């Protein structure tokens, strides 16, 4: 069963291939409770606990998850099924391992009040997640063939920073400024 590391005690999420619906539960329930559903699972873990994320045809109401989770997962669902040549320039399907990596990273750095990122597919099958607000730009890139990096720019002060995505403390700090 897939799990998502959220910094706050949260939930499971259910996605569909053709339409996004979500079900948020805490504590986590077993997928065996939904044997008739076609599920696609992702696995994540976090020091603060284990949470589950799976894709399936299911509809339920949303309770107390942070506002960023639903649109973010929805955006991931939107890009995960892009087919070969999706961008008309030979774009490759998105690498499922990079979806895991980027969700894992989000789980580590997002706060309950963090704004939802935009989730952008890259032509090489990679992923870029980004925020543009408060005259600041933050982009976290998961390329298909290179180490993940972040890029930050404050347009009002012309401050620029970049580095490894594994510098989660810095990313948390930058995201706090964006919230």
């Amino acid at each position, binding site marked *: 069963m897939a799990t998502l590391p959220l910094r706050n005690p949260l939930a499971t999420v259910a996605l569909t291939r053709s339409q996004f619906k979500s079900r948020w539960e805490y504590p986590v329930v077993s997928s065996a409770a939904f044997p008739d559903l076609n599920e696609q699972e992702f696995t994540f873990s976090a020091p603060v606990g284990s949470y589950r994320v799976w894709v399936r045809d299911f509809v339920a109401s949303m309770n107390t998850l942070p506002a960023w989770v639903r649109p973010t997962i929805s955006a991931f669902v939107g890009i995960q099924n892009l087919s070969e040549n999706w*961008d008309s320039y030979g774009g490759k399907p998105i690498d499922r391992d990079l979806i895991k990596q980027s969700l894992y990273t989000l789980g580590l750095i997002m706060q309950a009040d963090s704004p939802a990122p*935009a989730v952008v*597919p890259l032509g090489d099958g990679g992923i870029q997640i980004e925020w543009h607000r408060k005259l600041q730009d933050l*982009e976290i890139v998961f390329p298909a063939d290179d180490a993940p990096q972040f890029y930050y720019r404050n347009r009002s002060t012309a401050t*620029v920073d970049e580095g490894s995505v594994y510098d989660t403390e810095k990313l948390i700090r930058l995201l706090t400024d964006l919230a």
Partner: protein
Amino acid sequence: MCKPAHSDDPTITNEERLFHRVHLTQLVPDDDTGFARVSSGAFRHKELSINIESVLQSEGKTASACLKGNPANKLVSITAGAARQYHQTVCRDPDPLNDNLSHGLVCGSKNSSRVHEGLRDAADWVIPAQAPPYTDILAEKRALGME
């Protein structure tokens, strides 16, 4: 990297507009303005496909021809000079089999944030002529099942 045959073509002037399609999924919201902006992720390909405006015009075509058959795309442009400013080469790469004689390439590594961010900043909207409200883009994405 570009092949030797794809070295910089000096007959493409710095003022030349180079059109590039941007898929809806590579348009993101600017939360300060509410308008869509192009993600720098649209400018990372080592061999970035473009259409050269003057060749299009010589064929009697307009920019909209670049979007033919690509309904999930918008169109932006950079100038050849802007591409060269970021150490890219600009060359012709006509594709007569696909009736795409104006096709060209902007070649070079775009891994550096300076390059892909610079290209993104240099891009101008062509179709639509101005940045659309992001809500419009989101509606299009949803209509096409992208989000």
